[in-house]
């Protein structure tokens, strides 16, 4: 307490300090008060707003894709399965430098330019922010581990499991069952808002066949999941979940075994086989050959694979031959014959003397008999309707067709589904052409000429029909006029499916039901009428079917046909890879149903076979129909025909036609 200190007035200084201290204390309280006001503003006045913001930060709704319904054949064999795969996915928002990341990825796993291009298209699509976009499907275990090891360098990249379609039978069901593939922009744009929502979690949609037709049943409904995500977009917790409703499992009428048998029976030929159960309309087999592996499309077909499929102009594996039209040729004759009977242009007694050609009155042009082209000349001689069918006599039908006129032909044949699509659930099937005056005027701008009728009478000219239509028409004959529209879907979730048909097709009514018996008999003769001393008095398919299988235990009704190849492009003609003459060959066709003329068992199967450039309907297409029928009746249904005692009697009836009525 010396020196300067004595100059200070301690009392005054302490009071000054205390005042300052008090001022500071007041300021502190004021500042804390201001702070508390701010907190009250944030935590009470704006609580709702910030709560919502906080939830918006962390809560994310995400779609849970439903499991796609499985597809079974009639025996319960899987035709379309769901298999887990692992995909490489990208959340764009989390990737800082996409190009750098993709470069790094391509050093770890094979990543083609194609993969990246497809990925970029997927990125362009409408999508929820922070959703993952597939970059590469189906990672191998080794690829997965390489990605995992480097995951710290790959923010925004993850490996996600996914269930995708798998078709165990591969190319066997490619056209009929079809396939699913990634939804494209157009398909997405075509969906309603509600449907779009339903496809929120789904990458795939049915593109063809059953997969497309029954997309709604198979797809199911999307589920939702409320998840909590952190700052980096990782899911931390699952908070709420609306389960997806899995798509329904469906069962087809199709029989995988029969499908396989049909495919094998076609052998190296290009062509199609359609088999229908006449009593239910169920399609037992429907194949088109050559085919392709539908599994390729599921995870995005590479452009290389795709170009192989589309550039093959001869095999055209993507082209469904079973639902595309060809000239039906002589297979049309039984229906024309029925038209003649019904409209009373012929009767059982009516016969012509066939010189081997037909000539319109006053016209010098001769319509030759195609069937006789390659064999010795001359006609069939005395020919009634049955003979005209089993010998496939063109002249008889030129005459009949000419007398009936196109209007009657059109009107009658339309009842069998020609020029129309009777199928309940094969909407993509083509209708072919059942020509008429109106049709020709509308499409060609020309009037109908009598010569057009002549060509149509043997299933040529403007007449086009699909193998599916031929099988349908055959099944109507097998049913004696009762129309059961063909269908693929047998049951949904094990319950029989009864489709709602808005305009059911009426049955084919004829003046005398015996006409059915008569036509069936004629068609049975095609296969079973043996060689005899009579000139040209055997069934056209006898040699290839009944003679080839002398132990054949059932009867089959059928009709062969061959159709001229209409056009081959110059390009193909110039090609050296293929013997052009092969492509010039006629298409071979065959329609059949069996068992025929059986008092105990109604026909179980109607088959149409189309063999592209098969040349002969009877010798090439016929045995294929026989093989398919055998497989179905003897192996799948395991019908023991020998146990029916009346088989012997029936064999008698071939030579002595009698009225037989089956008791179905």
């Amino acid at each position, binding site marked *: 307490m010396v020196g300067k200190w004595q100059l200070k007035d301690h009392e005054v200084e302490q009071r000054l*300090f205390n005042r300052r201290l008090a001022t500071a204390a007041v300021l502190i309280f004021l500042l804390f008060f201001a702070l508390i006001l701010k907190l009250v503003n944030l935590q009470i006045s704006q609580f709702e707003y910030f709560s919502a913001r906080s939830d918006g930060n962390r809560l994310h709704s995400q779609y849970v894709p439903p499991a796609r319904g499985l597809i079974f054949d009639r025996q319960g064999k899987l035709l379309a399965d769901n298999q887990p795969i692992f995909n490489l996915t990208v959340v764009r928002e989390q990737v800082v430098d996409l190009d750098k990341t993709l470069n790094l990825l391509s050093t770890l796993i094979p990543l083609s330019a194609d993969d990246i291009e497809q990925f970029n298209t997927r990125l362009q699509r409408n999508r929820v922010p922070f959703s993952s976009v597939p970059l590469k499907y189906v990672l191998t275990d080794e690829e997965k581990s390489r990605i995992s090891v480097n995951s710290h360098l790959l923010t925004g990249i993850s490996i996600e499991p996914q269930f995708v379609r798998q078709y165990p039978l591969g190319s066997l069901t490619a056209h009929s069952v079809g396939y699913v593939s990634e939804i494209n922009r157009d398909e997405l744009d075509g969906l309603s808002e509600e449907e779009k929502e339903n496809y929120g979690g789904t990458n795939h949609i049915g593109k063809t066949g059953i997969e497309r037709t029954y997309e709604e049943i198979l797809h199911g409904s999307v589920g939702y999941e409320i998840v909590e*995500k952190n700052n980096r977009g990782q899911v931390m917790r699952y908070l709420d979940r609306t389960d997806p409703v899995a798509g329904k499992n469906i069962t087809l009428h199709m029989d995988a075994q029969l499908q396989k048998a049909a495919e094998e029976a076609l052998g190296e030929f290009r062509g199609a086989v359609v088999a229908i159960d006449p009593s239910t309309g169920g399609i037992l087999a429907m194949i088109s050959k050559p085919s392709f592996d539908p599994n390729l499309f599921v995870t995005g077909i590479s452009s290389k694979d795709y170009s192989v499929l589309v550039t093959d102009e001869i095999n055209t594996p993507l082209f469904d031959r079973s639902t595309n039209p060809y000239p039906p040729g002589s297979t049309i004759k039984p229906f024309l014959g029925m038209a003649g009977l019904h409209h009373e242009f012929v009767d059982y007694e009516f016969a012509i003397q066939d010189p081997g050609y037909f000539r319109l009155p006053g016209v010098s042009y001769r319509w030759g008999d195609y069937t006789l082209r390659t064999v010795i000349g001359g006609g069939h001689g005395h020919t009634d309707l049955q003979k005209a069918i089993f010998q496939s006599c063109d002249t008889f039908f030129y005459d009949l067709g000419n007398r009936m006129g196109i209007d009657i032909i059109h009107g009658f044949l339309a009842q069998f589904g020609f020029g129309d699509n009777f199928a309940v659930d094969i909407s993509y099937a083509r209708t072919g052409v059942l020509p008429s005056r109106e049709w020709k005027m509308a499409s060609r701008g020309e009037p109908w000429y009598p010569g057009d009728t002549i060509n149509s009478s043997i299933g040529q000219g403007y007449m086009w029909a699909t193998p599916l239509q031929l099988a349908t028409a055959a099944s109507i004959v097998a049913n004696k006029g009762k129309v059961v529209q063909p269908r693929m879907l047998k049951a949904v979730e094990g319950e029989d499916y009864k489709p709602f048909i808005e305009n059911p097709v009426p049955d084919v009514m004829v003046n005398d039901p015996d006409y059915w018996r008569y036509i069936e008999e004629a068609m049975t003769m095609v296969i079973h009428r043996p060689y005899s001393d009579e000139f040209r008095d055997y069934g056209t398919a006898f040699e290839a079917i009944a003679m080839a299988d002398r132990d054949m235990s059932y009867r089959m009704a059928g009709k062969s046909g061959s159709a001229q190849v209409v056009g081959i492009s110059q390009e193909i003609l110039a090609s050296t890879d293929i013997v052009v003459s092969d492509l010039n060959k006629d298409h071979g066709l065959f329609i059949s149903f069996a068992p025929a003329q059986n008092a105990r068992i109604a026909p179980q199967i109607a088959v149409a076979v189309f063999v592209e450039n098969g040349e002969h309907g009877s010798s090439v297409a016929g045995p294929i129909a026989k093989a398919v029928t055998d497989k179905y009746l003897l192996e799948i249904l395991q019908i023991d025909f020998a146990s029916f005692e009346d088989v012997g009697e029936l064999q008698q009836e071939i030579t002595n036609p009698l009225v037989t009525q089956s008791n179905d």
Partner: protein
Amino acid sequence: MINQDFIRQTTGFYRPPSRVQKIWRLIHTDPPLLVGIILLCCFGLFVLYSASDGDEGVVRRQAMIMLAGLVLMFAVSQFSPHFFRRWAPSLYAAGLALLGLVLFIGVEENGARSWLDLPGLPSFQPSETLKIVVPLLMAWYLASRPLPPRFKHLFWSAMMILIPAALIIIQNDTGTAIMVAMSGIFVVLLAGMRWRMVFAGFFVLLSISPLWYLFLAQAHQKNRILTFFDPYRDPTGAGYNIIQSQIAIGSGGVYGKGYGEGAQSHLDFIPESNTDFILAVLAEEFGLLGVLFLICLYLFVLIRGFYIAYCAKDMFSRLLAGSITLTFFFYVFVNMAMVSGLVPVIGLPLPLISRGGTAILTLFIGFGLLMSIHTHGRKRTN
């Protein structure tokens, strides 16, 4: 004993210290302040446990630092205020020397070149020690001058404050420079600097601030100020911290989301949730009530600091105690105001709650000085 009897008889107020009080005084510890500090530390560790997502290592390390701080505080309080007063100029000179040394051999960390890594010592920030040394020197300087200080004293005071502050700014650590300057300015204000001079200085600062903004301010500083006025001008960049911290605070409501339930903090939406923005975690999980509780704890410590300054027996002690308490408040307020969006973001931790190292030790040295002032002064006056 004679003295005590005399006081009791003349005033009637004197209560002899109990035995317990005697023991506390003997070890130079102020129980209320100690209780306040320990409560804050415990609450801080509790919040940090949640903020660090249950990382026990972080909490254990923080607890160890706090224990070391308590020991340091105890050690500091053993010396009388006169010891510090005597040594103030030397400590200041030493502090400046260390700052000078940093200029040459400083180590950079988090953008600030303010660390010294001397052999045999743990690395530390000399600038931190200036937070104590500057008020010490200012209290030493002004206590022996007539108060209120005259202009020339103020001028020298300004020099003594600005030299270390400038050295720290050169190290690119503006936050610490502001704190060091404030700790000195508080002494000057408490010493009774005339209000007209205070306001004059304030207006000078205000009028030159646009010039600072235009010519001197660095890009990130400008950004912080712009962000303060409109956080949404860059919601995912500069404004992200403040937006997310306001969401955390606001969504906490009155009662909070519950301990460990803060979605904003546990899902990593709040950056710096262990350090500068820990208040957002607290406010989210404990709501307005939790923040009010924390403010009460701080107020308790502040009031005790004010009481110690009020009771101090000489001007040096008063000025020092007042400055330490106000600096503590400044810390608390600036951090809370910045996290809730009341002032621009300045990188300052929340005292005793945020995770930290040297800064916590500096706080405890300050508390040690307060205890020293409170427990040494009494003996002499009697």
